[in-house]
C-alpha cells in the first residue's frame, strides 16, 4: 500500500481512529506512524476532532478489585523488561488477582519472620544504639523468591551496609558446569542491574551491593546465565523468579 499520497494518508488515519481499519493493516499503520510525521499529524487531527463523541459514553464505576489487579500487574511489569513475554490475553480472570494476593501474603509473612529473626540475632546489642542506627540509616529490604522448583531464596538488601545477602534452600535445577543463576535488581524504569551470582545449591552468600540509589519500588529477579554470569551485563537467559523487595 502506498502511503505517500496525502489523500490516502487522510483516509487511513480516519479509518484508524474510527476503528474500521483492522487486522494487519491496523498494525502496519501503527508501525508507519512511528516514522511518518505527516501520518501522525493526520491521526491527531482525527483524534481531536472526534473526541467530542466520547462524551456519550456513560461513566460506569469499576469494581474495587480491578485496582488491586492493576497494582499487582504494575509490579509484575517491572520484570517484563526481562525476556519473558507473557500475553495478557492468556492469563486472565480472578485467579490472577488471588494468585497475586497469595504471593504478597506469603512474602509479607516471610518478611516478618526474617525481621524477627534479625532482631533475635541482634538481641545482645545495646537497644539504644540499634534504635539510633535505624533512624539514621535506611531500613533493609527483603524478598522471598519461589521459583518453580524445590528451591527457595530469601534476599536481604541492606543499602546502608552496601550488602546483599542471599540464603538458598533447595537447589534449582541447572547444569552447574555450564550455567549460573544471576541476581538482578530492577529499578523503577524496569532496568535490570547485575548483583552477582547465587550460591550453587543450598547455603548463603553475601555480595557487595553496587553503588546505586535504591529505587522507590525495587524488584529482585533471578535469571539463568552462562557459567560465571551474563556476558553482556543484561539478562540473556530465562528469568526464573521475580519478587518485589519490601522495605522492613
Amino acid at each position, binding site marked *: 500500500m502506498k502511503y505517500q499520497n496525502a489523500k490516502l494518508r487522510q483516509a487511513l488515519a480516519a479509518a484508524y481512529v474510527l476503528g474500521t481499519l483492522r487486522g494487519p493493516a491496523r498494525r502496519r499503520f501503527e508501525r508507519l506512524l512511528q516514522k511518518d510525521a505527516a501520518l501522525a499529524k493526520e491521526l491527531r487531527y482525527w*483524534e*481531536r476532532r472526534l473526541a*467530542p463523541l466520547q462524551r456519550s*459514553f*456513560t461513566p460506569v464505576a*469499576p469494581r474495587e478489585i*480491578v485496582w488491586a489487579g492493576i497494582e499487582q500487574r504494575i509490579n509484575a*511489569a517491572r520484570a517484563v523488561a526481562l525476556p519473558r513475554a507473557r500475553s495478557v490475553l492468556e492469563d486472565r480472570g480472578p485467579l490472577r488477582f488471588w494468585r497475586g494476593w497469595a504471593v504478597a501474603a506469603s512474602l509479607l509473612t516471610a518478611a516478618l519472620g526474617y525481621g524477627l529473626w534479625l532482631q533475635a540475632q541482634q538481641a545482645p546489642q545495646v537497644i539504644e544504639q540499634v534504635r539510633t542506627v535505624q533512624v539514621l540509616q535506611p531500613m533493609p529490604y527483603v524478598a522471598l523468591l519461589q521459583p518453580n522448583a524445590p528451591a527457595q531464596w530469601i534476599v536481604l538488601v541492606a543499602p546502608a551496609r552496601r550488602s546483599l545477602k542471599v540464603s538458598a534452600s533447595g537447589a534449582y535445577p541447572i547444569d552447574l558446569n555450564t550455567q549460573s543463576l544471576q541476581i538482578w535488581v530492577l529499578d523503577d524504569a524496569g532496568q535490570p542491574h547485575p548483583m552477582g551470582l547465587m550460591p550453587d545449591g543450598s547455603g548463603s552468600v553475601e555480595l557487595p551491593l553496587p553503588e546505586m540509589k535504591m529505587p522507590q*519500588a525495587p524488584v529482585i529477579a533471578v535469571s539463568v546465565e552462562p557459567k560465571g554470569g551474563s556476558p553482556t551485563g543484561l539478562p540473556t537467559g530465562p528469568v526464573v523468579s521475580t519478587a518485589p523487595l519490601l522495605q522492613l
Partner: protein
Amino acid sequence: MAQAESADNLEQLLRATAAGDAQAFRRLYEASSAHLFGLLMRMLKRRDWAEEALQDCYLKIWQKADTYAPEKGQPLAWLMTVARYRALDLLRVRRPEVELPDEDEAPPMTFADGAADDPQLRAVEREGIRRLNDCMGGLAPEQRRSVLLAYYEGYTHQELARVLDAPLGTVKSWVRRGLQRLRECLDA
C-alpha cells in the same frame, strides 16, 4: 457528564504519574476510571472483558504517561483514546454478539449535544463539540449511522453490513464518503 477533576488537574496528575508518583496515579485512576470503564463496557459488552481491558489500559497509562502532550487533546480524551484503541484490539480477538443497540440505550445516533453549553468546558472544546455536531448533521443519514456505529460499537465493515443489512461495498463507501465529507466540513 460531570467531571470531578478539572482538565488542568488531570494534566498535573498525568505529569506526576509520568515521574513515577504512585499516589498521583491512584488519584488519576479515581478521577478517570469510570469514564474509561463506561466506554469499555459499551464496546466490549462483557464485564469480565471490560475489567481486564481496564487493567491493560492503566498499565499502559502508568508506563506511557510521559508520552501525553497537551497537543494530543484534553487529558481525559487522551485517556479514553487509550481505552478505545484497546477495545478495538480486543474486539479483533473476541467479539460479543453483533446487533443493533437497543433504542433505549444511550442512542449512538446522536451525541451529547447539550455538552456544547457546559460552562465547565474550555471555549475551544465547546466550539469543537458544536462544530462536530453541525458537521455530523450535514452527513447523509446512512453515512452518519455507519460512522457512529463504527465509533461507538467498534463494528467492522462486515459487521456494519450485517446490522445495516446492506452490501459490503455500499457500507464501505458510506463510511469512506462520510469521513471525507466530515473532514471537508470540519476544515471549512
